[in-house]
């Protein structure tokens, strides 16, 4: 099992890269995980990551793509609430990669 070492703390990841213990998340964890994916986190990334964490705290699950897009549209406006915008920030599967970087469980209802 993979481990991240951040500020002396050892953070265990499951075999898909999600945190074993969600309470260990902090912004530095997201930066490390993003770097592994070849992503440098910008403000545009962070507002989505915090939106995801807010989604999780309100609804107790990680969103699939469709509700993620809708939540972004409601919170951040029409321009950002599009899958193409999220795909640019989090290539591949924004719902999965976003949840991973935001320190959330892997979304259940993905295709």
């Amino acid at each position, binding site marked *: *099992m993979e481990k991240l070492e951040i500020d002396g703390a050892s953070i265990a990841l*499951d*075999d*898909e890269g999600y945190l074993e213990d969600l309470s260990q998340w902090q912004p530095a964890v997201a930066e490390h995980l993003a770097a592994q994916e070849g992503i440098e986190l910008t403000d545009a990334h962070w507002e989505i990551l915090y939106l995801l964490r807010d989604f999780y705290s309100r609804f107790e699950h990680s969103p699939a793509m469709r509700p993620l897009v809708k939540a972004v549209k409601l919170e951040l406006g029409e321009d950002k609430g599009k899958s193409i915008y999220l795909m640019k920030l989090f290539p591949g599967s924004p719902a999965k990669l976003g949840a991973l970087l935001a320190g959330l469980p892997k979304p*259940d*209802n*993905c*295709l």
Partner: protein
Amino acid sequence: MIFSLVVQASPVQSQGAETALRFARALLASGHSIHRVFFYRDGIHNGTALASPPQDEANIPAQWQALAKEHQLDLVVCIAAAVRRGVMNEHEAKRYAKDNANLAPEFELSGLGQLVEACLVSDRVITFGGRS
């Protein structure tokens, strides 16, 4: 006609799984096709390879396996429901660092999307339940 069956009943504790099995046989005998049998909730226990009832009692999981072999049935076990209950194939056993896998090879682990897809392509979707 294209049918899909949803089995929510566990193989021993309620009758529903056996009813579903008989219905599946009758469907095939009347020339209808079964797109998929989706096992959800405690129904996922039908997928175990380890069921070992006494030799003079019905082995429902083994009967699904035999029927699947004979008719190339698509038997899909809900992955989230199964992994929660400790039923998994080699791949998931490895992922969760378990020593053993116990899903019979005739069954496939997949997501609830397979249930919805079955609804989209089937003329009839019939649920076989046990209580709660």
